[in-house]
C-alpha cells in the first residue's frame, strides 16, 4: 500500500511565524502535491512537483513556498503565517503526472494548521 505520511497532524502557530509542513511518501513516486482543503471550497492546489528540486505553482501559491530536496519528501513552507492560512493541508503523491484513468493520486491524512 502506498503510504503518504504528514508528520504533523495538528499545529497551532502564531501570526508571523515560519511554518514547515513535512510530507513523505514511500512508493518512489515522481509527483507530489500540496493542497489546501477548506469547507465550501473543496481542494485547491498550492504547489506541485514533478521531480527533485522542481516545483510548479498551483492555483493559490501566494504566501507559500515548497522544497523538494529528496524524491520522497515534499515540504510546504509558510514564510510568515497569517490567520487566513488556518486550514487543513493535504499532501498527495502519484506515480505519473496528473489525474488520468490509469493513475491514482494518494493522499496523506492531513495537517490541521491553526494560526492565531
Amino acid at each position: 500500500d502506498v503510504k503518504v505520511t504528514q508528520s504533523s497532524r495538528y499545529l497551532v502557530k502564531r501570526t508571523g511565524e515560519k511554518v514547515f509542513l513535512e510530507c513523505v511518501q514511500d512508493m518512489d513516486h515522481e509527483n507530489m502535491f500540496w493542497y489546501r482543503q477548506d469547507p465550501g471550497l473543496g481542494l485547491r492546489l498550492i504547489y506541485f512537483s514533478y521531480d527533485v528540486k522542481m516545483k510548479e505553482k498551483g492555483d493559490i501559491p501566494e504566501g507559500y513556498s515548497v522544497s523538494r530536496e529528496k524524491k520522497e519528501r515534499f515540504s510546504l513552507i509558510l514564510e510568515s503565517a497569517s490567520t487566513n492560512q488556518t486550514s487543513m493541508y493535504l499532501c498527495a503523491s502519484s506515480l505519473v503526472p496528473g489525474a488520468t484513468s490509469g493513475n491514482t493520486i494518494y493522499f496523506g491524512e492531513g495537517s490541521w494548521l491553526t494560526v492565531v
Partner: protein
Amino acid sequence: AQRVTQPEKLLSVFKGAPVELKCNYSYSGSPELFWYVQYSRQRLQLLLRHISRESIKGFTADLNKGETSFHLKKPFAQEEDSAMYYCALSGADSNYQLIWGAGTKLIIKP
C-alpha cells in the same frame, strides 16, 4: 472555464433509502471524471472514475456528456456511507491537474 459544481453542501438520507450526490461540470474538451471520498478521520481516497464504469461499495456514476453531469448513486444507503464526497475532473486543459468540486457531506440517518 473549467469548473465542477456540487450543488448540495449537505445531504441527509435515511438508511436504506436511495442516494444521489449531484455533480455538474464545465469543460470544453473531454474530461476524466472522478469521485473521491473522505470518511471521518481517514484520508481522502479515490472512490471511482468514470472510465472504469465500475461499482464500488455499491456506488455507481455515469458520465452524461449531454447534461455535463457525473452524479453518484447508490440504491440503498448504509450508515457507513456517511462521509464527505468530492467530485473532480481532469483533462488536457488543466494539464491533468484535478479540478475539485466543493464537496457534499453525506449523512445517513439510522
